[in-house]
């Protein structure tokens, strides 16, 4: 900083600590609730330190069947959500890499048409075409399948743009050198382009994993049977304020487990996350 401003600095720290508390408190509160019994949760105010039932509650959530959601256990839900998040992230990356490669490194009739078709998907999010998309999925028999949960979300204009932008910065000399050395297009893709794209792929993976994990409307439409639910949908079904027998301690455990994996990905891969966010959205 330019001048020494001890008071201003103190004010900054003070405001930031308050900010951090506001950002963290809702999550901490649910964590505390997840370590307490139903009776404790229902006799407010809840103490602000973890209770004695951490192990009991988490073991019960994993081993006991959750009757409100048809006896499916938490392991199944986490498995489903992981499959969905990984499939969407990996699928989007592969499909976008291939399309960006085609658009940048080849000349062929219809190139711009295809490029625009991909671009227009930006303007057609699921939220604006709920019913007709649902009908298509019913007609194709994709309700309650992993394919139905993931495949339609794999088209990606943003990821395609990101790779296209990056491919355009690759010098022509590199392509010429590869061609002189006798490398075909697939070989060039595998041995030159993929290694160069590693950073972009990692950054995009973090963003897309979170995107896949936090999907809500789509799994809500695509799943009828309880054992195909993602954890978010199951969580919604478990909560009922009107109903006296809501197992609040299990709800809290489920909440914590529903948010933990993507939060861990963000915190542990912070550098990739920030890069991916700032670059993919521009």
């Amino acid at each position: 900083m330019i001048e020494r401003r001890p008071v201003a600095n103190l004010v900054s720290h003070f405001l930031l600590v308050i900010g951090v508390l506001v950002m963290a408190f809702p999550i901490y509160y649910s964590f505390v609730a997840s370590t307490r019994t139903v009776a404790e949760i229902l006799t407010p105010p809840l103490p602000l330190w973890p209770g004695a039932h951490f192990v009991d509650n988490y073991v019960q959530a994993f081993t006991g069947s959750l009757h409100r959601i048809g006896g499916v256990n938490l392991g199944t839900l986490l498995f489903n959500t992981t499959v969905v998040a990984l499939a969407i992230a990996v699928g989007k990356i592969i499909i976008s890499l291939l399309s960006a490669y085609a658009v940048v490194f080849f000349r062929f009739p219809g190139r711009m048409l295809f490029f625009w078709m991909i671009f227009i998907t930006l303007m057609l999010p699921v939220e604006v075409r709920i019913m007709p998309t649902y009908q298509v999925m019913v007609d194709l028999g994709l309700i309650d399948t992993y394919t139905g949960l993931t495949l339609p979300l794999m088209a990606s204009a943003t990821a395609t743009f990101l790779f296209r932008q990056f491919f355009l910065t690759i010098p022509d000399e590199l392509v010429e050198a590869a061609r002189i050395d006798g490398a075909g297009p697939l070989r060039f893709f595998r041995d030159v382009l993929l290694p160069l794209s590693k950073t972009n792929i990692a950054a995009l993976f973090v963003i897309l994993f979170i995107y896949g994990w936090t999907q809500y409307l789509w799994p809500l439409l695509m799943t009828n049977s309880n054992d195909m639910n993602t954890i978010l949908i199951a969580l919604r079904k478990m909560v009922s304020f009107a109903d006296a027998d809501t197992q609040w301690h299990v709800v809290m455990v489920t909440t914590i487990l529903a948010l933990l994996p993507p939060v861990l990905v963000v915190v542990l891969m912070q550098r990739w996350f920030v890069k991916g966010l700032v670059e993919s959205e521009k």
Partner: protein
Amino acid sequence: MRRTTFPNKVLPYLLLAPQIAITLVFFFWPAGQALWQSLYREDPWGLSSAFVGLDNFTRVLTDPNYLHSLQVTAAFSAATAVLALAAGLLFAVMVDGLSRGKRIYQTLLIWPYAVAPAVAGMLWLFLFSPAMGTFGILLRRAGVAWDPLLDGTQAFLLVTVAAAWKQVSYNFIFFLAGLQAIPKSLHEAAAIDGASPLRRFWTVAFPLLSPVSFYLLVVNIVYAFFDTFGVIHAVTGGGPAKATETLVYKVFNDGYVGLDLGASSAQSVILMAIVIALTAVQFRYVEKKVHYA
């Protein structure tokens, strides 16, 4: 444009095939269906449908419930965007001004980004539930008639705060990146001219942040329009008495729950128009930035 390309004639089509296939089947086909259905009306048993022209649109646009939902969405988007942008900017300015500890604050402020909107809504509902939430109870003890499940204004407040809370991290990251891209020499020059830190912020940093701010404003509005479905669905279900029924929630409710296809499709088409307008605004700005930056 590249000078060197590969000469293959068939390969590029094969490379594009997966993306284009998904786009056609899951994007263009349903969007076309929405356009088509918005011009027809089905009988309640789905046995026959008749062409009704723009009747569905007139019906939707003169429906007081729809107009109410439009108002709710506008108020909700504005409140969410303003709250999330203000908090994000404040945190970014504070963190940027620190000489040490930047990294720790950054880590502690970004992780709500990874929380799904539906979960964000539930976390806040747990805190403010009148039956079991600590803050809900405290409010009641303080004499406030607090019950977001019955009071429309309170429900609206709760979903707005939950939706904004999740989006603060995103805005923070972009504002911080924007602030860090401002050359130090500009701040130093202004300081030598005797400008106080606050004045330097308003006259140097803030104008230079305007492209980022504008971009974020559009993104936040899009977020509040479309991505907050989870918050609404999980916390209030559009209630009480439609006080939190946003446009997207209404499309879902009329179509998926109420099975009124014509009206739902007409609403979808209106929403598409809104997305197209927002995207156009966003890209015009991006284009400008490319040309003049």
